[in-house]
């Protein structure tokens, strides 16, 4: 066992401790932490593809064949072979896989899980469908202005991208523009979106990004309140909001279709994420497919969560996770949360300047998503300032708006990074 593997096991046990004893997003962090331990078992190669397992076997004949399959003139060093495999075109990668298979090696269990669940993109999308089926857009429909709060809170995402690019420009870190985009999405406070984006743009950073995203979501009750208090006056926190109007069933049915059509017209790169989200929500609201909606909210999302978590855990293997970049990601992630929170609160104050129906700025912070934790934080601070001030339902509007906002931001970033050749 290397010192790296040992450290990662300790880190993963720490994640399990936080998940189980401190209730840190346990549905994800228990499988992620456990998967991380499995990924670091020396000799078990659970997180490796067959080709890498063959490399580590050290058999000279196999190494020579692999080098040839990957277009090298011969085996020089493990390092050069690994680089060749990472950059191999698809045909060479398949030849190498055939060599490994003939030599009796097979893909590790977690590597297979990762490929099926995450590399294909299916697991985050299915979870997003389930989240859609669990989401009630009623509070948002009753007060559509709260969508602006969800938009503002995405500033955390983009500020972090800028931060990551800045760190690279200053030579502190070495993040590509794709890395920066993937890191920024932590600020979306939305696990499946973060995993989906990093699986596309920066698969090597996926472990650190997912861990940061879920950990900081669990820390929302600690991160947000000081920022919220600093940016609001006691007076503002006391604002009571008018009761939400009743939203009809038909509005709820039509809303996911309206959102889908806007996505189709203006943001095709967000179509997988928002499409599945709207599909889940339509199944929920339409009232005629409740057995599908129930399954999407239960058996299907649970099964997917188990394999998604273990797959993310496979990216906690020491050689990928123990990297200065991880520290950078953790640092940038918390900044992203903080900026998003602040932007949401400030946007709420801005709305109050231009509108006569006053908004309590405490609900602005809920725009980062982290459903429903952030909305509960808004409610708690509201009650502190005014015991008759129940903000929970009002905060659910920006809260679900934040989910839409992050998915929109994800689509924008995927499009732009690709256009930049990232």
């Amino acid at each position, binding site marked *: 066992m290397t010192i790296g593997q040992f450290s990662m096991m300790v880190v993963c046990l720490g994640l399990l401790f936080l998940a189980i004893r401190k209730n840190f997003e346990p549905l994800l962090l228990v499988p992620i932490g456990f998967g991380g331990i499995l990924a670091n078992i020396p000799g078990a190669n659970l997180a490796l593809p067959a080709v890498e397992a063959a490399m580590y076997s050290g058999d000279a004949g196999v190494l020579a064949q692999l080098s040839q399959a990957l277009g090298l003139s011969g085996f020089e060093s493990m390092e050069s072979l690994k680089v060749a495999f990472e950059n191999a075109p698809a045909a060479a990668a398949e030849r190498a896989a055939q060599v490994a298979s003939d030599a009796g090696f097979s893909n590790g269990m977690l590597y297979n899980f990762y490929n099926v669940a995450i590399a294909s993109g299916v697991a985050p999308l299915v979870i997003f469908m389930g989240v859609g089926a669990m989401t009630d857009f009623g509070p*948002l*429909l009753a007060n*559509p*202005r709260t*969508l*602006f709060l*969800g*938009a503002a809170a*995405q*500033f955390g*995402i*983009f*500020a972090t*991208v*800028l931060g*990551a*690019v*800045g760190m690279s*420009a200053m030579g502190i870190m070495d993040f590509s*523009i794709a890395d*920066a*985009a993937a890191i920024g999405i932590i600020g979306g406070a939305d696990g499946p979106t973060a995993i989906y984006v990093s699986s596309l743009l920066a698969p090597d950073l996926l472990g650190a990004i997912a861990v940061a995203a879920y950990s900081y979501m669990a820390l929302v009750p600690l991160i947000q309140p000081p920022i919220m208090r600093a940016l609001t006056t006691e007076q503002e926190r006391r604002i009571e909001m008018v009761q939400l109007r*009743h*939203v*009809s*069933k*038909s*509005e709820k049915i*039509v*809303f996911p279709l*309206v*959102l889908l059509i*806007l996505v189709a017209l*203006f*943001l095709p790169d967000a179509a997988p994420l928002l499409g599945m989200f709207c599909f889940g929500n339509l199944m929920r609201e339409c*009232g*005629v*497919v*409740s*057995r599908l909606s*129930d399954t999407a909210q239960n058996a299907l999302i649970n099964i997917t969560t188990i394999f998604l978590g273990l797959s993310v855990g496979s990216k906690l293997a020491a050689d990928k996770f123990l990297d200065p970049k991880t520290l950078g990601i953790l640092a940038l992630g918390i900044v992203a949360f903080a900026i998003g929170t602040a932007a949401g609160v400030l946007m709420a104050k801005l709305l109050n300047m231009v509108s006569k129906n006053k908004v309590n700025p405490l609900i602005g912070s809920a725009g980062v998503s982290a459903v429903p934790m952030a909305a509960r934080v808004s409610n708690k601070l509201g009650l502190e300032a005014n015991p008759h001030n129940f903000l929970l339902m009002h905060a659910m509007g920006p809260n679900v*708006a934040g989910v*839409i*906002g992050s998915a*929109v*931001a994800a689509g*924008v*970033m995927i499009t*732009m*990074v690709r256009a*930049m050749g990232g």
Partner: protein
Amino acid sequence: MQQGLDITLFGMGIVFTFLLLLVICTTIMSRVMTRFFPEAEAAAVRSSAPAASSAAGNARLRKIIEEAVKQHRNRRK
């Protein structure tokens, strides 16, 4: 660095524009729906289009259990 600025500016711009559009469309949609398909009709439609048998079963189950709870609570009083 330039790329980072581009992403930030364009990105925030698109997010705001898109959500602004969504606010507008949602508001229009809500007005249209409340004017042309008021709740009463929606309710009528729902009852004329009964959910699939399983769904109905679920609903019934829920109702029964709610009844059981009510009975139980009444007894406790």
